[in-house]
């Protein structure tokens, strides 16, 4: 026969079970982290087509008609946890109203992450295939052709030197220029601001005179010279780059 004490016990048990489940559910609720990429050329915010920026290693100034690049393989690490974003190929582009690239990442709940790793460009494995994953599109503007792979960075514009207008084309790819970088994550934030400094592409070593290197495509040494700037192109910024 059921005693009164048994009934109380089972009610308490049921309540405990309910609370544990609720906590687990609460903890496991995924969170969203928004990455905002703010494009700059040195200290000036990027203004597509209209902005004029000094030629880093020579005379004149240049404008940028288009700028896009691939971010890939986003990975979040904590003391005990690691989370790889699935199909993580994101084409950052800035030809929108706000002029920034925004990327929302869903992170699993109940875990703490203190490091974010990402690649700039396309990893060699994906670069050698025609797989459609994330923003990778073999028929897209960033694709060269299936035997060459993807452009990691696309920068097109013009150099003005007095009356002379020189077209600028920097299409930088190739496996050896794939770059990974990492940022420590400030605790408890749902928005991360990152500065994209395009000028770094031309100032990694000796500043490039755009007139003497107006195009970079398939010459591997030239591509590497621009590619060297990739590991310092991104940096964390608090609110100052969003102002």
């Amino acid at each position, binding site marked *: 026969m059921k005693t009164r004490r048994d009934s109380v016990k089972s009610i308490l048990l049921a309540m405990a079970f309910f609370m544990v489940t609720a906590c687990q559910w609460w903890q496991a609720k995924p969170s969203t982290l928004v990455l905002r990429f703010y494009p700059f050329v040195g200290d000036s915010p990027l203004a*597509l*087509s209209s902005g004029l920026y000094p030629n880093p290693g020579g005379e004149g100034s240049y404008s940028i*008609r288009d700028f896009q690049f691939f971010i890939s393989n986003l990975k979040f690490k904590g003391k005990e946890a690691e989370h790889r974003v699935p199909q993580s190929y994101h*084409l950052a*582009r800035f*030809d929108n109203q706000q002029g920034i690239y925004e990327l929302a990442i869903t992170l699993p709940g109940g875990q703490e992450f203190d490091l974010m790793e990402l690649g700039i460009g396309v990893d060699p494995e994906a670069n050698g295939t*025609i797989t*459609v994953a994330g923003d990778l*599109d*073999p*028929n*897209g*503007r960033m*694709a*060269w*052709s*299936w035997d060459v792979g993807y452009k990691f960075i696309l920068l*097109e*514009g*013009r150099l003005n030197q007095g009356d*002379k207008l*020189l*077209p*600028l*084309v920097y*299409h930088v790819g190739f496996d050896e220029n794939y770059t990974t970088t990492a940022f420590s994550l400030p605790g408890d934030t749902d928005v991360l601001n990152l500065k994209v400094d395009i000028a770094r592409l031309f100032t990694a070593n000796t500043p490039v005179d755009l007139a003497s290197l*107006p*195009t970079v*495509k*398939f*010459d*591997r040494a*030239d591509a590497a010279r621009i590619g060297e700037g990739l590991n310092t192109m991104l940096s964390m910024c608090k609110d100052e780059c969003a102002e």
Partner: protein
Amino acid sequence: MSKRQVVLLATAFAAVAVFSTLSFLLVNTAPQGKPLKNFTAPFVYGRFAIPPDNPLTEEGVELGRRLFYDPRLSSNNQVSCSTCHQQSLAFTDGLTGSVGVSGKPLAFNSMSLANLLWGPQFFFWNGRSDSLEQQALIPLQHPDEMGQDLDELVQELEQDTTYRQLFRIAYGGISAETIAKALASFQRTLVSANSRYDQFLRGEIQLTEQEEWGRKLFMAHPDTKASLRGGNCIDCHSQFLTSGFNTKFDGFINNGLDDEANLSPGLAEVTGNEAHRGVFKTPTLRNIAVTAPYMHDGRFQTLEQVLKHYNGGIKPSKTLSPLIAEADNLGNFSDGKISLNLREEEAQAIIAFLHTLTDETFLTDPRFSNPFSDKAK
């Protein structure tokens, strides 16, 4: 509660349940035809999206095909979509500017309708329409194209039993919106994927030596430093689809047809952006050998003339694509004259490759042909 009350209550519950199920079914089984079977597309074409409110159905596509070939869609009942979009010409009309009900030639060349699910999802040469549904009703009403009043058209189609039935099954009724949906559905099925280039991509055939040379030139941006010669086509025409790129306005460029003083507004008419003056949609090159004349205004009669344009005929302007301005197989673009500087044999090889994009299956596919002609019946 008496037994009688229980029975009454149960009956009431049952009635409510049946009623709500029925109304749920009525609301949620909006008229819809059978999903289209056997719709396939090559893997290399990549992703495509069909609007959720206009899924491809057997009936929708059949309707769209009838409408496409039906001259009753024009004010004088003499012009159909197929007047300017003829299957044997990859859905173009061979004219510099198309001619509709007014007899006045249009300023623009009729565009091929192939693989519309991919490439820029902005239609017309200046991209003024962002869906095929929206696009379909524009030439229908344009006074120089089909000049049709939409209300009159709905009334006219209501008189036709076949249309009434098909529209009822596919969309629940006839309206301007469902006419547009049907036309869009049919056009989405126009997939060209059996040219010699496709057969080559599938590993079924080999290209001739000249075609293969042309293919390589097509796929390469010239780079004198890397000793790479190229025709520079790939910078605008994607490698498999050969259309413009599909994201945003990436598939629109100024390819140097006119100088600064003579630039047409082009995409700028839609975006209001000065940098888009003289910028037009990059068309697919699928079946290009049968879609002369070329360019948005049909100014070139032959592929040789097109190659000549890129090989020395480029006119500079502020919005000219830097990829065209800078593409030069001799590497001396700074001397002011913009040219690919291709050799004659190279231009010929590219033309030979362009001919491998002709897809006889597409040009003769009975599913795309006139349903009113005797042969199709």
